[in-house]
């Protein structure tokens, strides 16, 4: 992380002003919480920020980063305890409010990350349940939520509309049992949509279609607007990030 350097150094004795530097600035604050073993907070917060950003930008649901969330939550708790101790020992309101701001920002990232995932689940619940690969990307709690959500969803559609229709038309998954053999009413995310992404390393020439007619040279730290589908494997292996 080359660009983390200056703002992280600056963070120790000044206030990062805009949101973009928030996560990097965090490392600065943490450094000044002397010897509290919070060295790795910074890197995890930066990681969370990337995971969150990817989740927000990708059209489909991405694998849940359970261990990262776990670590961040432990660290937030640790920091909250430290702040409490700090508040009773030293009455420095400015420093205190800076520490609080830092914790609040991390919590915001975490909440926003989980919210973004819920909203994707709610958009395509049945598609996710039907697709083993997507289903495995959810956390245990999210799986439970998806099941419950589907249940109330189906019940509501059933009782409001479907029960009133002629029998052959009363399915939530098929338009009609007369003609459709497959479930043709399940919405799916549009994977061919365009996304903005940044290459995290020099990947070199990358093919955007099966035929090899279209390819792009991916250079380190360059920005691209590409279709999501061909590059989703690069996202999985963390070679690019979405912005």
């Amino acid at each position, binding site marked *: 992380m080359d660009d983390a350097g200056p703002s992280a150094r600056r963070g120790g004795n000044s206030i990062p002003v805009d*949101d973009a530097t928030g996560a990097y600035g965090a490392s600065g604050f943490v450094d000044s919480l002397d010897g509290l073993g919070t060295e790795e907070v910074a890197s995890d917060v930066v990681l969370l920020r990337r995971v969150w950003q990817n989740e927000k930008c990708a059209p489909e649901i991405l694998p849940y980063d359970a261990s990262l969330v776990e670590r961040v*939550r432990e660290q937030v708790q640790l920091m909250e305890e430290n702040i409490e101790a700090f508040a009773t020992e030293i009455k420095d309101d400015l420093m205190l*409010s800076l520490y*609080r*701001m830092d914790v*609040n*920002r991390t*919590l*915001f990232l*975490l*909440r*926003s990350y*989980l*919210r973004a995932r*819920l909203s994707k689940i*709610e958009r395509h619940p049945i598609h996710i349940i039907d697709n083993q690969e997507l289903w495995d990307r959810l956390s245990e*709690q*999210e799986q*439970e*939520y998806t099941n*419950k*959500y589907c*249940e*109330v*969803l189906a*019940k*509501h*559609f059933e*009782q*409001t*509309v479907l029960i*009133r*229709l*002629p029998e052959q*038309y009363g399915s939530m998954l098929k*338009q*009609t049992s*007369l003609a459709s053999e497959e479930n043709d009413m399940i919405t799916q995310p549009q994977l061919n949509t365009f996304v903005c992404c940044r290459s995290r390393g020099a990947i070199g020439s990358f093919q955007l279609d099966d035929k090899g007619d279209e390819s792009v040279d991916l250079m380190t730290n360059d920005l691209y607007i590409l279709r999501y589908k061909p590059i989703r494997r690069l996202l999985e292996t963390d070679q690019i990030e979405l912005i």
Partner: protein
Amino acid sequence: MAMFGKKGAELVREAKQTLATTDQFRPFNKDLFEQVVKETEEHYGHLQERMSQIRVNDSTEGGDPNFVGGCAQHRSVLRNKRCLLAYVNARMSKIKHLRWDLGAVLPDDITGNLSATERTFFQGYSDALSSYMAEINLDLTVDSTPPKDPYVQIRVIGNLGEVLLDDQETSLLPHSIHFMTRTEAEPLVMQGLLEIYQG
């Protein structure tokens, strides 16, 4: 019978208006909804009539008119189904927002505008979300905007009396203005007891 699909289109327009209205929650348009359901039944009746008249091995020129007519009726049923579901779906997404914006208990003026099944849906959705948030032990409905400042200035609207804030007892008298942490203020703002005060 009225023009095919006209009522359905009206219902979709109603759905669009439901989504566009932000200051209140439009009541469930039962009249229009019932009309579309009724129309769908009529279409289906005609469809069955046509189907029964289709003769196999009919060699009339230009195909069997019963078949063509039946297709039109069939498509109309499908279209109406789409319209009905779209209307219910649009309202459903509004109802989900209510859970995030107003919490688990809705004020009476909104509840009155929901249909009975919609109230059941809200309850079910609210329970699912609450138990998810309890499982992960994190309230996701607060903190919806990136925090600029850990403290906010608020004005008291409701009568709160003595409240424990940040482990200190504070007296929140109506119309008084205070500084408090955002996380403590947000639930109270959601309940309508406080408002964010921009001086």
